[in-house]
Structures are given as C-alpha cells and as structure tokens.
C-alpha cells in the first residue's frame, strides 16, 4: 500500500464572481511509496507548493481523494488533521519557521508539547535530535542568534522529533548558500537511506533535485514528468 495516494486531486481558490476560477491543481493522481525520496519541480505558479500543502494536510483539496497511510484524510476535521500532522508528518520550510523567542531545544520539542509528552522526556528527546543534526552545542541558543544553516538544522530536528514517517521539505535550501545547501541535503539523504523515512522535496534547483531518487515535474497543475533517477552523488 502506498504511503501517499492522490486520486484526481484538484484545487481551486475562490475568486471574484465574474473572474474565471483558476484551477491550481487539475486532477493530480500520484502514488508515493514508503521510503521514497521524491523531488517535485516546476516553475513558479505551477501548483507545486499547493500540492505540498495538500500532502501535508495543511490545506484541503477542492476535489478528489487523498489517502495517507491508507486513511482518507480528505474527510477529516481540522483537529483530526492536526493529529495526523503531529504524528505522521515532519515539516521543513524555506523560511525555517522557528519560534524566535524560545530556545532551539524548546523549538525542537514543540511537536511533543502537542502530543502530551512530559517536559523531561520532551527535553531529552529534543536534545537527542539536536545532537543528531550536529547542533549539540546550541541547545539553549535562540534561533535569532544562529546562522541560516543552523536554523534549518533546528527545523529538521523539529521535523524528526516525533518520529514521523514522512518529511515534507518546501524549498529547504532556498535561503541557504550552496555549501550549506549540500550539508542540509546530505542530512535528508542520510535520513532516507538509513532510517527509511519518506522524503518529499519541493525545489526549483536541479542540483538539489538530483539528491532525490524520483523526480516529478508539474506545470499548470498537471504532472508532466515522473521519472526515477540515478543518484549522482
């Protein structure tokens, strides 16, 4: 059974009455298996970010069905979706999206806060994740005081802390220089290779997409290319 199963997913945003409704996603059908490393590419406005939001249960489709791990999530209530995000999905964003006023440790522990895990366990698990992403020394630092690469590592640690099966990364290297980008991508590759975590990545850089084993191209809300690629790294 595929981990992600999209069945004729469409999405349009409401617009003014006399305007034609733009179809952002137009009947996308797509399966992603457990353990895959997928890169989604496409020009801006192609709908790739919208697709990511739908896969991440941050948004709901206008039509079609989405089964995540065999469960139809298109019919779930907002609070049920929150639970799915909490338990199954880890997010890494282009702008890092860390809370500025709390320490790296508390940022990483945030998902555990919403799954009723005690403070001491939250702290120890968050510290372990920071260690894993090479930030053992920055436990008590505030995100503002860290470099972009370090902040993105904190974000990855946060995505990993609740042991998700799926990590969604939306342009994770968009704000980073090429050297740091490679370091971040190495972490993703390693997680996929060693822990079998499914990774779906949105990018517009070919260098970054090359890390993935499968490449999907989207133009105007349609899948125009879906191919397995040999890892060149």
């Amino acid at each position: 059974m595929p981990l992600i199963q999209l069945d004729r997913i469409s999405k349009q945003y409401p617009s003014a009455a006399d305007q034609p409704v733009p179809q952002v996603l137009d009947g996308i059908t797509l399966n992603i298996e457990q353990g895959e490393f997928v890169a989604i590419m496409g020009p801006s406005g192609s709908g790739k970010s919208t697709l990511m939001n739908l896969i991440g249960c941050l948004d709901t489709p206008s039509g079609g069905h989405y089964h995540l791990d065999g469960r139809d999530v298109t019919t779930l209530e907002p609070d049920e979706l929150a639970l799915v995000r909490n338990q199954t999905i880890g997010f890494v964003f282009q702008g890092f999206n860390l809370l500025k006023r709390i320490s790296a440790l508390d940022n990483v522990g945030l998902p555990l806060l919403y799954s009723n895990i005690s403070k001491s366990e939250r702290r120890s698990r968050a510290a372990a994740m920071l260690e894993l992403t090479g930030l053992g020394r920055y436990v008590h630092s505030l995100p503002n005081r860290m470099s972009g690469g370090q902040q993105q590592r904190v974000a990855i640690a946060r995505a990993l802390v609740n042991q998700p099966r799926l990590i969604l990364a939306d342009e994770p290297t968009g704000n980073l220089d090429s050297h740091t980008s490679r370091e971040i991508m190495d972490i993703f590759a390693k997680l996929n290779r060693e822990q079998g975590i499914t990774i779906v990545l949105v990018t517009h850089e070919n260098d970054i997409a090359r890390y993935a084993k499968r490449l999907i191209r989207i133009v105007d809300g349609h899948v125009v290319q879906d191919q397995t690629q040999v890892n060149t790294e």
Partner: protein
Amino acid sequence: MNLLSIIYEAWSAMGQNKLRTGLTMLGMIIGVGAVVVMLGIGQGARTTINESIKSMGSNLFIVLSGASTSGGLRMGSGSAPTLTADDGEALAKLDSVNAASPVLPGTVQLSYGANNWSTLTYAVSPNYLVVRDWAVESGQNFTDTEVRGATRVVVLGKTVAKNLFGEEDPVGKTIRIKGSPYQVIGLLTNRGQSLDGRDQDDSALIPISTGQRKLFGGQFPGTVRYILVQAKSAQVMPEAEQEITQMLRIRHRLSEEQENDFTVRNLAAVAQTAATSAQAMSFMLGAIASISLLVGGIGIMNIMLVSVTERTREIGIRMAVGARRRDILLQFLLEALMICLVGGTIGIGIGVGAAWLTSDMSGMTVEITFGAIGMSFLFSFAVGVFFGYYPARRAASLRPVEALRYE
C-alpha cells in the same frame, strides 16, 4: 497538551512585550482597584447608617399626643396633654408589644461642685433602656420601686458625666438638678450620634414619677410628651400599630366618630429610608467602578487582537506541528486571563491600600469585606474570559496554510 505547559507558554508570551503587558495590566489594576475602593466606601456608609439605626432602637413606634387648639391656633402634634404614664403601662401589656416607656423630656441645669451643665433630661420608666436597646455601663438603672417612690435618682450619659465629673467616677455621688439633690446611680454606655446628628450621650434619665411630680411639674400633671413602644419583632409591626391605636381609643373613651387624639408613628420606616438610600449610593459607586473595569477589559481585548495578528505565523507553525484549535484557544485565553488575574490581584492590593488611606485621611468609614475582595477577583476572572475569548477564538479558527503564509 497539558494545562501546566499552556500556562507556561502563556506566561512566557506575556514576558515578551513587558511594556505592553504592563500597560494593559494597568487598565485592570485601576479597574479592580476602583471596584474595591468603591465597594469599601459603599459598605462603610451602610455600616455607619445601620449603626445609627440600631442605636435608635429597633422596631420602634413613637406615640405622640394629639394637636391642641389654643385661641384658634392649632399647636401641632404633641401639644395636647392626652397621654399619661398609665397609658404607657397599658401599652406595654399588649400582645405584640415587647416594652414601652412614657417619656417626658426637658432641658435642665445639672451641677456638681463647681461644674454645671445643661442637658436634655428624660423622665422615663425603667423599660426605656430596653426600648432604646441601651445599657448601663456601671452602677445600675432605676427600678419600679424608685418610680413608685418618685425618688430623686439619676442615670447619666457619658457626655454629661464627663462635663460634671471629668475623670472622677460619678456613681454614688450626688448632683443638683434645679437646686434639689439627686443621687447618681448609674452611668450609660457610649451611644454616639443619632441619625440627625445629636449627641445621644448628652442626656440624663430620671424616673417618670420624679419628673412629673418634682422636676418638671407643669400645666397638666400626670401627662407625658410621648410614649416609645417597641414591637416584639419587625413582622408584628402592623398588628402592634393596630393594637396600640385600639387600646388608646378605649382608654381615652373616644366614640366612633371622634378622631384619634394621638398619633402613632413608625420609626422603622424612617430607618428603612436611610438604609435604602445608603444601598442606592453603594450600588451607584459600584456601577461607576464597573465602568473603569469594563474599559480595562476592552483594553485587554484590543491588545489580544493585536497580539493574535502579530503572532499569526507563530499560530501557523504551532498548527503545522500538531496544535489543535483547542490548544491555540486555551493559549490565548489563558494569556488574557493571566493579565486579568495578575492585574486583578495587584488592583485588590492597591484598592485595599487606597481604602485605608481614604479612611485615614477623610475619617470616612471604609469597610473592605472578604466578599468584596472575592467579588473583585471573580470580576477580573470574568473580564478575562469575556474579553479574551473573542481574540482567542479568532486565533484558533485560523487555517494553518494561511497562517503560515502570513508575513
């Protein structure tokens, strides 16, 4: 997400913008402080009035003799000599009456050694102290024996005793009233001011018979100015009034068509009016203070709305990692609540201090009850929930994808 973590989150968010939190809290502090002071002043006024009412005696009637007509001039209530000391005794025996005392007052000069003092002297029966709810502090009250014998004895009020005797103990001493010697047998307890501001301690009591026969003499022997009657309870006041009227009509041999030659006045009604106006005043003060509390609450709502807008992205992040709507709602609600409760507690402290200062500087009775403090605390809680709910609700109903996109 457990409550303790939410409280911690809310607490740390409050510390983020200390000036803003402080100013918002100031609105609550002033509001709650005002409520505490105003309730205190209102309660103090009520207590003062209730004490005056109690010092008058409770469930009282005053029976005045009727009006006389002299040379075409009507002289008003109390001018016709129709009431006697025996009327008083008869009224005391009625079913719904607890006690009664005839009263014959007069202002006379009292002297002791080189000191002299003019005071209102009441010729009364021993029951006068029962009716007035008054007591003897040292020595004793006169009894029926002294009344029967028309003995020259006197019970002094505190003010009179102080003016005649200074620090000396008056009991057992002999003073002169209008030249005749009277033995002081008792000293009354402190009574303070009456409702109309008279010093009640500036008075002396003598047996009714002594007053009638020896001190006041007068035009109409055997009559008294008025009779004070105390009903058994507040409930039987109407029955008591009827019985008094009936009894006096019989005793005065009034036929059906004749009008009453006396007036029965209910003093409880006067007391009721005073108490009602005190209550109205404290209610008004409370209402004024509530307005400042309301303004403080609106300030909180305003700031919370700003805070929700400012932190839209944070809300999005929290939702993305699994916060449910309830978690977000509680976080913001608790933040508003905490501003209110912390502000409320400080406000209570300042209010109590201000109340103390007010009573110290103006001499006004300001009474802070635990009820008032509890109510103020409850008020600030209610303000927090009421004004915090809408912004929190707004935060919780954000859609994660839009909140995350917010710049």
